[in-house]
């Protein structure tokens, strides 16, 4: 990410979102539904624990031999006729995709959902090059019409309700008549997209799991658009972050089960695609060429640190955002980051710098709901604290150091913690302060700098008449 552009800020965007009652209702309703559906899938805590442990172990084993597995994946894909490309960053990734499209004279592209393509800002890039990428996932199609970015990694248009989508379709799709009926709205999108699949020169997709053993690309979806995008056009380009590799075919079913149940509360999805290469000589359909672009974009730096490498276990189910009390209230756009919610809070600062995106690290009450539901056991709250420490105390140089370590430290706050430390290590001073606070009690002015943020919606806190230290001493509780 370029350091020259001004750092995005969570706070003002969150503030705007909080003042939008329709947006808030949309998220609350959607998240409540997703929480309920996931809860039903994992009603048996023993089964949940076992499956999660298995998922965590599979992802842990994958990370332990990540470089080797990536080499094996490349070899297996190559054997299958899939051409593998390595991209160090988004710029390289975009150039690779453009090169393939140019080689085929492709100008019309259909895409199925890919967060990596969002990370690369691929659509924007292709449009600048005169190529027309069309999103075919219904949610992605909706936000593309609205010139928006995804507000959720699984459900990109979750910030909109039925009426908002009806208005958008009425305005943007010429042949559509205005309707608020969900089935009719879906049918409108389907009619538009159907035609585009057959006109497209190339298809672009993401990858959910790439199997090193067999060179198989797995794609999880519900709408059939993934299958259409990857099988109808004559060229298929699959994009993946390098952490999406798994070792064996047998690693896939447990991860798939964890993914769909955690994400949408579905036992399985409507479609599960396993792509093992281009169309064979005797085969009637499928693309003539399959390309796999493996993107690093900061991931190998994350991989360097044993604890932070956990970030790369993520299978992008979105359960952490569904259960996040902050995300539920402000929605995905407030994060000003490709990956919103708790996983975005640990991933984005590592990619862009803990100084630049310190705002994301602060936007957590550390309630732990994200870590509790993570299907592969990523301890997100602990990693948030770790990254906060990196931002304050970290050293910017040396192997495995976090991007922009030490750059989140501000003089005023550091001074405040130094005073705090002094007051709490000197028990005499601490007791004197407690004595003063309990005697002043209601005299605390609610407009004090930090206190005023508390009293904006709350009464001024009133200390007790005497401290527990005093009460305990008076009651004769032994001090030993």
């Amino acid at each position, binding site marked *: 990410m370029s350091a020259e552009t001004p750092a995005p800020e969570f706070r003002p965007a969150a503030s705007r979102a909080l003042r939008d009652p329709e947006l808030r209702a949309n998220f609350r309703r959607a998240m409540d539904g997703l929480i309920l559906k996931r809860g039903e899938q994992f009603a048996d805590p023993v089964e949940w624990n076992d499956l999660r442990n298995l998922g965590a172990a599979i992802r842990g084993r994958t990370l332990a031999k990540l470089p080797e597995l990536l080499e094996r994946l490349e070899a297996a894909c190559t054997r299958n006729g899939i051409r593998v490309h390595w991209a160090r960053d988004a710029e390289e990734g975009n150039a690779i995709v453009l090169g393939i499209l140019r080689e085929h004279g492709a100008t019309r592209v259909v895409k199925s959902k890919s967060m990596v393509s969002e990370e690369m800002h691929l659509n924007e890039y292709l449009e600048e090059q005169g190529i027309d990428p069309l999103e075919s996932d219904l949610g992605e199609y909706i936000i593309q019409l609205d010139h928006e970015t995804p507000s959720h990694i699984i459900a990109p248009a979750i910030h909109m309700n039925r009426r908002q989508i009806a208005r958008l379709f009425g305005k943007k799709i010429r042949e559509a008549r205005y309707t608020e009926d969900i089935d009719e709205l879906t049918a409108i999108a389907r009619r538009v997209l159907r035609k585009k699949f057959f006109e497209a020169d190339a298809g672009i997709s993401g990858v959910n799991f790439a199997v090193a053993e067999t060179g198989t690309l797995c794609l999880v979806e519900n709408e059939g658009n993934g299958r259409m995008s990857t099988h109808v056009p004559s060229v298929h380009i699959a994009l993946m972050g390098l952490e999406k590799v798994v070792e064996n075919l047998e690693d896939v079913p447990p991860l798939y089960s964890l993914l769909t149940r955690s994400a949408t509360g579905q036992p399985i999805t409507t479609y599960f695609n396993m792509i093992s290469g281009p169309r064979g000589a005797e085969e009637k359909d499928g693309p003539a060429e399959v390309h796999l672009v493996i993107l690093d974009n900061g991931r190998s730096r994350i991989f360097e640190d044993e604890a932070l490498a956990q970030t790369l276990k993520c299978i992008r189910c979105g359960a952490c955002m569904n259960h996040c009390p902050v995300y539920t209230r402000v929605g995905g756009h407030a994060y000003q980051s490709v990956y919103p919610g708790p996983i975005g809070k640990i991933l984005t600062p590592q990619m862009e710098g803990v100084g630049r995106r310190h705002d994301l690290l602060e936007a957590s009450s550390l309630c*732990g709901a994200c870590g509790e539901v993570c299907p592969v056991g990523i301890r997100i709250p602990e990693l948030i604290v770790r990254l906060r420490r990196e931002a304050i105390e970290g050293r910017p140089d040396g192997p495995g150091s976090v991007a922009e370590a030490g750059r989140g430290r501000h003089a005023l706050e*550091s001074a405040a913690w130094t005073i705090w430390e002094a007051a709490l290590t000197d028990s005499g001073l601490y007791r004197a302060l407690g004595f003063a606070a309990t005697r002043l009690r209601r005299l605390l002015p609610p407009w004090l700098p*930090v206190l005023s943020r508390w009293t*904006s919606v709350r009464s001024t806190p009133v200390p007790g008449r005497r401290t*527990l230290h005093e009460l305990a001493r008076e009651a004769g509780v*032994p*001090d030993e």
Partner: protein
Amino acid sequence: MSVSIPDSGTATKPEAVYYFGTCLVDLFYPEAGLSGIRLLEREGVRVVFPQGQTCCGQPAYNSGFHQEARTVARAQIALFPKPYPVVLPSGSCAGMMKHHYPALFEGEPDVAVAREFASRVVELTSFLTGVLRVKLTDRGEKTRVTWHSSCHAMREMGIFAEPRELLAQLDNVELVSLAREFECCGFGGTFAVREPEVSAAMVEDKSADVQATRASTLLSADGGCLLNIAGRLDAKGSLVSCRHVADFLWERTRER
């Protein structure tokens, strides 16, 4: 919900325990802190309260100022040298001492001391039920209460059933569950002042859920959540009283 059996530090009833009051209880809920001591003493346990104690260090730890947090934590650990369980009337501070102290001291010369201390840390309600197996007799009037569990009590200390078991022993107390009872109230320590607007939205929803129960009292075992929810309810002019569970239990069961 993760379900786990809390490690109470000791399986059988000890002759003595240490009490770590926590800074929030010390300042804002001192009576509740004393009630916690009374509840323990009534079971025949000698309670030791080292007067030098201050704060577990969590605010600095969570803010990334680990050096400062460690200095404060080290000063606390030194005050609790005997092998007694360390009982806290807070799931959040207990979580800090039990689960984060070992990480905070990783690589320090006194990491073993910190780990040993952490292994003795136990939250009050789980100690009352799991170790002391208290039997309570309700002497209070009929009342309807609701319960808010702190996120750290639930998710770090694995405490969910314990306070409910205690309240279930009180014949005249009706416990009504909160809607979305597993959702954070928006306190989050310094979060409340770092992200005041998001925190305000969270506590607004929580206080509305409390009011919807029509309970006269909100109980919790964590001072931070109480301060937050009570502050919002009071600002709204609500008459719901917000109390630390130790205070409530002691008041209803003490012999007069």
